């Protein structure tokens, strides 16, 4: 009897935490079906799916979708390419390469909100070193995050600064764990390097690339810290990604119902992605622990 109850007793506290998370989650689902504005508490009431239906005719919603997807696409693709490139450069283990790969972890371990602050200081129009450097090559009035035309570029750059090392270290770990034989055989046969890369390295590295990509997709579509710290979603509505928009909807316009509905849309996207992720990740994990 005692033995049968043991695993349940051990996991009880963790279960309580789960319940503690599920309660506010349930509340959010409930809010999303309500007309609920903190400034007009008396108008509160159940409206079913109206918050969601309203989205279809709401240009702010479509703007959020567009910006979020664009941001996610740009950051993930650019970070993947750059991260893969750096991992390939550092592939051979050695003192110098290892030191570089460790140093590159520093941006990743900087709080993203603080990283945004660092870039904000460097791109300040009055004294920012980057504003100065870019004026030397002819961009006299480049306004970085404060101009609508370069705001997205700037936050994508900061995101790349923070998260490229993440992709880099996963892929580097992957590259270094690949078996040597196929590469040695290819070299003996004098196979061209581009062929080795596209037909051997890349396919063998694919599980790692997929893991890194899914991790980044899930984080990037929910990006809040960098954008909020940098511009609070501005200039205008230029950077109103999902979480920034719903944060402002909640705290600035006190529209709880709408904010919750918007987050539910984001949740649906992440739920889909995280299912893909978990399936893939379980396979990988089994292999990692199987080989250990």
């Amino acid at each position: 009897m005692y033995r049968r109850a043991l695993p349940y007793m051990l996991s009880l506290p963790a279960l309580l935490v789960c319940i503690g998370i599920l309660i506010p989650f349930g509340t959010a689902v409930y809010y999303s079906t309500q007309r609920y504005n903190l400034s007009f508490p008396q108008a509160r009431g159940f409206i079913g799916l109206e918050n969601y239906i309203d989205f279809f005719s709401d240009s702010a919603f479509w703007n959020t979708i567009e910006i979020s997807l664009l941001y996610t696409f740009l950051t993930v693709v650019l970070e993947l390419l750059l991260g893969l490139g750096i991992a390939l450069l550092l592939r051979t283990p050695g003192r110098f390469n290892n030191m570089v790969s460790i140093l590159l972890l520093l941006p990743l371990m900087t709080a993203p909100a603080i990283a945004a602050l660092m870039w904000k200081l460097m791109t300040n129009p009055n004294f920012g070193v980057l504003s100065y450097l870019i004026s030397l090559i002819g961009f006299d009035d480049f306004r970085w995050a404060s101009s609508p035309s370069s705001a997205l570029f700037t936050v994508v750059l900061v995101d790349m600064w923070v998260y490229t090392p993440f992709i880099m270290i996963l892929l580097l770990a992957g590259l270094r764990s690949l078996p040597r034989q196929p590469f040695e055989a290819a070299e003996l046969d004098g196979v061209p390097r581009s062929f080795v890369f596209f037909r051997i390295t890349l396919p063998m590295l694919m599980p790692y690339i997929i893991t890194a990509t899914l991790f980044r997709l899930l984080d990037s579509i929910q990006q809040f810290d960098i954008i909020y710290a940098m511009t609070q979603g501005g200039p205008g509505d230029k950077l109103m990604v999902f979480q920034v928009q719903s944060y402002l909807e909640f705290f600035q316009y006190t529209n709880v119902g709408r904010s919750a509905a918007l987050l539910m849309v984001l949740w649906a996207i992440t739920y889909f992605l995280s299912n893909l992720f978990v399936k893939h990740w379980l396979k990988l994990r089994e292999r990692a622990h199987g080989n250990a």
Partner: protein
Amino acid sequence: MNHTSTAERIIRGLLLTLVLLFFLFPIFWIFLMSFQTNEDILRIPPSLFFTPTLENYVALISGRLSTVAGDLDIAFMRNLWNSVLLSSLSVGVALILGVPAAYAFARFKFRLGENIAFTLLSFRFAPPLLVLLPLSLYFSELGLSDTYLGLVWVYQLIALPLILWIVRGYFEDISPDIENAYRIDGHSWAKTFRKIAIPLARPGIAAASLLAFIFCWNNFVFALVLASADKQPVTVGALAFVTASGIQYGQVAAAIVLSVTPTLLLALYAQRYLVEGLSLGAVKG
């Protein structure tokens, strides 16, 4: 693969230099800025040569900033202390809750265990605001918004999945035979767990704790939504700093340096475990 030409070596070196420049220059530059006076910072063109000053740090640490317009109080040390407190308490609680659960999930196959593990994992990937916004309303009703307790509880969302999944992987790698042998000697289950399982999984527990600490420290949105002014950690405090009037840029830079130094040092120390931790145990580094 050993016969690399000189041209290739040069290109390789050049590319790596560019990479290092992009990723390290911001840290280097902010570090310099934190030792500059406002006049040095505002000078154009920016210069690498200046007389370093500790004024910015003195102002932050003493909490008083003297300007022409009068004295100003800075609560930055309070933010720093809050970060230390929140991160270490959260990791401590996550260890107490997570390590036994991780053990249970690794040793006993039971449905509830998988469900808990996956619920926590799925919330690791859900939008944090979805949980935080309703919580902010609950917190003000329950009177939790002004307490460390409420924040530490919510920080479990960051720390617990990490501890649970990484430590579980370590327990799974340990053969149960050792534990069984010890049990046959007549030792109780609790003693086996304490004397055999935990020491064997110690590297995993240490790695997971360090990472969980770093992630708690670096978190921004949880405290932004839930913490009252005097409970805010450095991430939120530093941001408020920029917009506060009378604060000088050198002090912002110094605040940034103080807020990132602990995590960067820990990361350098724990770098062996980072790959495994960052992929929640999916990739072994």
